[in-house]
């Protein structure tokens, strides 16, 4: 007669995630019980408070490494703590942008163009559901990179994805496009989840366990059916590569980036990438480390085509959000070089790159929210002509973010690019480095084209203007700018912190 043993959970170590989930539940309560008038302020303060509190708790537990925080399903280690911290920081900046409710519809369920929608917008009310949704997504993102078994990974994946599907459809303007984006994201996301589960099932069949370290041990012992392992790795990779937007699983990226409300795009582009790469790094570094020679060719090819495809197709884009979407695809390729490095240097470089890229992305999309005319945001590149003349400050900020994406020295992007390519080169991935450098040259072209358009073209008279941003939006963009420059000039503190902290425990 075996007795039931209660699972041991170390709550203090799980607290960052629990705090965020708690905040989300409080948010739902507020939606239910608080009056419409006070909801916006209340929701915003609860959300920010939750995120800050969680951040503090992450900082508090940063040295308490253990593999058994939740019965071996989630881990607390340096790399996980860094990624959770980065996600929370990005989320705080993202919520500042979300707080500008001008971008969101009021009743998401209203039929586009209907009387109901018009009335709801005229009423001046605000859509506050977005805050708890954000918190749920953040909780999923925080769980994703610290999960150490495939089941928890899947739960985290769904937890971060489902709110994002909804949030993508909340745009106030161009409702149909926004809803289409949401549906597309949902359908393709569901597909990729299926792939992920399929792969997980095969890996279980191979190793007899779902834990990453168990799979790693089974690969070392090499007494399972290799076909199961390869199919498992391949399908699991498809699910993850979809989330990071690697070619050929990238098709959703431009549509969703364009259709979603821009603050959501900013948050999603920056934070999802950190979470997904965090999980990807852990799975490949911890679980599949000893199958390196099996997955290396696959990931090498995907990295190369992702870098090239993203850079080349971005050139043809006429819409700023689509251009940034393709640029994010190219960056996913660069980041895969860090996965290929499979070394401590590769891990450090990837984390630095994720932080640098996430912050710059948030800033860039933040600027996009500011350029408007009477009918809303302007994302048509041609109408950005002469922005440098009308609002030199905003144009300079945007140019800085673009230069960081292009990897020009004295910006964070350069240090990130150098560190990730050197780590990849060190482990013999010369082809990836060379293609990476060449596609950086291609990518430089379309970043510079936007700078030319902003600074060297004459303004067109079509009512485009830069709105005076709210304090929170301003704070978010300026912080992103300051970090981008600071990490370009003095990357040493962060690099040292990462290299002394970032490890995966098994």
């Amino acid at each position, binding site marked *: 007669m075996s007795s039931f043993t209660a699972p041991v959970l170390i709550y203090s170590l799980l607290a960052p995630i629990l705090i965020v989930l708690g905040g989300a539940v409080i948010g739902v309560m507020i939606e239910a019980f608080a009056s419409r008038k006070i909801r916006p302020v209340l929701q915003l303060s609860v959300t920010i408070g939750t995120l800050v509190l969680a951040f503090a708790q992450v900082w508090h537990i940063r040295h308490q490494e253990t593999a058994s925080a939740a019965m071996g399903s989630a881990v607390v280690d340096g790399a996980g703590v860094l990624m959770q911290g980065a996600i929370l920081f990005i989320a705080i900046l993202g919520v500042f942008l979300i707080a500008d409710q001008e971008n969101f519809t009021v009743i998401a369920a209203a039929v586009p163009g209907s009387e109901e929608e018009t009335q709801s917008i005229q009423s001046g009310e605000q859509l506050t559901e977005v805050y708890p949704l954000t918190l749920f997504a953040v909780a999923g993102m925080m769980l994703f990179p610290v999960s150490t078994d495939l089941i928890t990974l899947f739960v985290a994946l769904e937890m971060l994805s489902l709110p994002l599907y909804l949030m993508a459809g909340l745009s106030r303007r161009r409702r149909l496009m926004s809803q289409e984006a949401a549906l597309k994201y949902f359908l393709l996301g569901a597909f990729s989840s299926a792939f992920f589960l399929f792969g997980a099932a095969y890996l279980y069949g191979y190793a007899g366990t779902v834990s990453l370290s168990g799979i790693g041990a089974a690969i070392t012992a090499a007494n399972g059916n290799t076909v199961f392992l390869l199919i498992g790795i391949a399908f699991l990779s498809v699910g993850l590569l979809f989330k990071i937007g690697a070619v050929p699983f990238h098709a959703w990226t431009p549509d969703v980036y364009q259709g979603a409300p821009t603050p959501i795009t900013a948050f999603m582009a920056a934070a999802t990438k950190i979470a997904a790469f965090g999980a990807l790094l852990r799975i490949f570094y911890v679980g599949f480390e000893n199958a390196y020679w099996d997955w290396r060719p696959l990931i090498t090819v995907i990295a190369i085509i992702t870098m090239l495809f993203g850079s080349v197709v971005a050139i043809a884009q006429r819409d700023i959000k689509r251009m940034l979407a393709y640029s994010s695809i190219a960056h996913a390729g660069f980041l895969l070089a860090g996965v290929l490095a499979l070394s401590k240097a590769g891990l450090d470089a990837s984390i630095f790159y994720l932080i640098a890229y996430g912050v710059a992305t948030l800033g860039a999309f933040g600027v996009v929210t500011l350029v408007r005319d009477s009918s809303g945001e302007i994302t048509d590149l041609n109408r950005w002509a002469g922005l440098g003349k009308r609002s030199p400050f905003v144009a300079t900020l945007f140019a800085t973010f673009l230069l960081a994406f292009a990897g020009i020295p004295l910006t964070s992007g350069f*240090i990130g690019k150098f560190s990730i390519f050197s780590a990849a*080169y060190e482990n013999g991935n010369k082809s990836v480095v060379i293609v990476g450098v060449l596609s950086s040259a291609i990518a430089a072209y379309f970043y510079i084209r936007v700078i030319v358009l902003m600074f060297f073209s004459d303004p067109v008279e079509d009512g485009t203007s830069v709105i005076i941003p709210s304090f929170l939006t301003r704070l978010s963009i300026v912080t992103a700018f300051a970090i981008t420059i600071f990490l370009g000039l003095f990357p040493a503190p962060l690099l040292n912190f990462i290299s002394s902290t970032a490890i995966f425990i098994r």
Partner: protein
Amino acid sequence: MSNVNWLTTLGILPLLGAVFVAFLPKTNALAAKRAALATTVFVAIAGIAMATQFQRDNVDLQFVESHSWIPTFGINYAVGVDGIALVLILLSVLLAPIVVLAGWNEASGGRWSAKTFYILILILETMMIGVFAATDVFLFYVFFEAMLVPVYFLIGGFGTGKRSAAAVKFLLYSLFGGLLMLASIIALYVISGEQGGHTFDTVTLSHLQISSTTQNFLFLGFFIAFAIKAPLWPFHTWLPDAADAATPGTSVLLLGVLDKVGTFGMIRYCLTLFPDATKTFTPVILVLAVISIIYGAFLAIGQTDFKRLIAFTSISHFGFITMGIFAMTTQGHSGATLYMFNHGFSTAALFLVAGWMASRRGSSKISDFGGLQRVTPVMAWVFFFAGMSSLALPGLSSFVSEFLVLVGTYTRYPVAAIVGTFGIVLAALYILIPIQRSLHGPIMPGNEGLTDLNLREKIAIAPVIAIILVLGFYPSPLLNVINPTVTHNLSVTGHTDPAPSIEKAGK
């Protein structure tokens, strides 16, 4: 005096000037100009003061400073100069005030205020000093790439004609070369890590054991970047467009200083880091250099526009410099280094006068000028003088350097030297024909009302003329600084001058 951080001080002064200018009111262009002029003059004086502290016979790097910058990757903020770098820093700090003074009204045709123009110029000066002073390859790369940004905005924002297209072309060419160099730098970093610890220190890197295949690839990464910068045929096509579109002052800095980073880099990095690969590629590069000399000269003859003409003469001159470097003789190297300095000043003279002529006439087409000698005698004489300096008339500084380069090349590669000598003949054509057309003959309609140089312009051009004359007769102050470094460089990389041979009489 050893406790003065000369190089850092020198580098940071223009930056402080830029910050100061940034706080001036936008409408007060005059204040911005004065502040920029004061800063650059002060930097020039400080630069000369630094040069007097330089120990000529000491072949080690001097004014050395090193602080840890990014310890994770072994990157240091490390600066120091040898004779060659010192000469090029002097060139930069001397040209900057001349450019500011000569182009007093240059910023007026720009998209943005004069204030922005001078901020960009001052930031550029900081980076020019930094790029020559850096002794850490990573730091060098940072300056090498970052200096593109101010130049890009100077061309695109304040130039004339197809300025944005020219600026983009310039930036993309340079970025492409820079990224190839980045790949090589990453490889060097990895190799240094395998051989005793990650570092970017130039001296340590030069002791690495690199297999010859790898060396060849890494050499090419660096060399193509420098050949684009210098610019060497066939990587030159961005230069005429950029020089045509940029303001004269920007062109002076672009051709006079920035392009020297290419030839400087060939000596400092290609030669010392990859001595074996240098030997492998020398024949190819000499051929490219000779082609540049002849091709640049021929195209210069065919130009109808002063600015493009000067750009093509520079391509020819950069051919000479590259030839001198890859001849691997002491005369060749001394001549090439001196050439870099002299070319800076003779190009400055040409560009500034051409700029003044163009701004007065409203056109830089050669055919729009005629009989200037009678209308504006001083300007005509200055142009004549600048032209003579460009064709290396004996008695002017460029003669000394061109002669040294040819002698140095002849002792090892006589064919290259002989073919290169034709460049001098062609130089006479590309300089004398436009001089004849624009200065002499009847006064062209539209030229009657042109005014002669004013006091400010005379003051700006006077030091240029003085330097060209003085160094033409007495080049030893510079050569004494350059020669020890050159001898040291060549001996370290295993090159010796060919022994002089005398034909025995009566055979």
